[in-house]
């Protein structure tokens, strides 16, 4: 240990020029400023993380997808009143609802609008035998196994998840298709159930005669307590 004398012994205070403090008064204001900014940033970040997933940018709900052929559900469903199953043939028996083959389009369009410019790609497809490449509107991750047929069979209407399709000139996503969104219904299906015959009905409104969600659940044998099992969707 070196001898104490190396300590800088201050002489008499009087006369010794005062060593002014390191910081000027503004330092305090700056400190406050910095601290408050940090706090604000933190709150904004948290808030952002909380709200972003629900923005349409993230969910893409309501954002119409451009398509090679500007197919309008509004016209075909709302206007002409085509049944969903006319094109989405396998919705009642299969996991997938099925996209209509070009053939289906041409069942009508070989008679009407035969040389409409809009439909050129369709005729092209049939002529060359190359499929039309639509832009997907509803997509789920690879590890999610969704099955249309069971939902349809249990009185979940098309519009419940896909929105007012009959009002979509170009189709957009009807719901976020988030896990939490799925769970909301899987935990409490009653409000989203309809009588079987109304499943494909675009503008169905419950009437006094309509059985309650609970009655429907009973008649469909739906057991919500089993519907939030992970294995229902993940395999």
């Amino acid at each position, binding site marked *: 240990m070196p001898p104490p004398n190396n300590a800088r012994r*201050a002489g008499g205070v009087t006369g010794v020029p005062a060593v*002014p403090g390191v*910081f000027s*008064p503004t330092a305090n204001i700056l400190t406050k400023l910095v601290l408050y900014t940090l706090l604000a940033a933190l709150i904004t970040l948290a808030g952002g993380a909380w709200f972003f997933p629900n923005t349409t940018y993230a969910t893409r709900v309501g954002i119409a997808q451009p398509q090679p052929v500007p197919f309008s559900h509004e016209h075909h469903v709302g206007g002409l009143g085509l049944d969903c199953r006319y094109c989405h043939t396998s919705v009642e028996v299969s996991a997938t609802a099925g996209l209509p083959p070009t053939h289906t389009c041409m069942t009508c369009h070989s008679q009407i609008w035969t040389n409409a410019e809009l439909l050129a790609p369709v005729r092209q497809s049939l002529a060359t035998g190359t499929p039309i490449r639509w832009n997907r509107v509803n997509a789920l991750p690879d590890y999610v196994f969704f099955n249309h047929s069971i939902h349809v069979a249990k009185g979940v209407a098309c519009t419940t998840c896909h929105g007012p399709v009959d009002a979509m000139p170009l189709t957009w996503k009807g719901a976020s298709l988030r896990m939490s969104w799925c769970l909301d219904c899987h935990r409490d299906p009653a409000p989203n159930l309809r009588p079987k015959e109304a499943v494909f009905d675009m503008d169905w409104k419950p009437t006094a005669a309509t059985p309650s969600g609970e009655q429907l659940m009973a008649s469909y044998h739906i057991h919500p307590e089993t519907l939030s099992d992970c294995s229902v969707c993940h395999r």
Partner: protein
Amino acid sequence: MSVRPGTGHSLRGRLAAFDDPDAMLKALRRLRQEGFSQLEVYGPHAVEGVDELLGRRARALPLVVVAAGMLGVVGGFFLQYWGMVLGYPLNIGGRPLNSWPAFAPSTFELAALTILLIGFLAFCRVCRLPRLYDPIFDAPGFEHASQDRFLIWIAEREGHDDHDLLRRLLPEGEGVRIDEVPA
């Protein structure tokens, strides 16, 4: 110049510096007897007895910490209870949804965390930290307060001229110097 030490009162005053804490204590006692009330002591380490002489007792911190602890326990347990029983009840290995014994360790840890964080914030609050600038820092020789000197700050009392009194109470020498802090 007016010195506004951390204690908050904005007054002109004097600083008395002592090499030895005991001398400082003696002086402080005298000053109190003479009725000086607005005093503050600065030093390189805590000195027993000062608080008593200045008549200060801390209540805030312990209370805050106890509250924090309770908050931590309740919040910590509820968080787990929420997740396992209310949020997404799952059959995990046949264990009950509310397996409270399994929630105990985390509850304790979370309580500790709350105490640590809130405790520190409360400390900063009562000490009014961070406070990078304070006039006291500009007081001549104040830098010794963090090294080898004990300083007593004596607020100037309205209407008295304490100069001579202080001279008498705190005689120069034996490591005592009075420092006039001019207005």
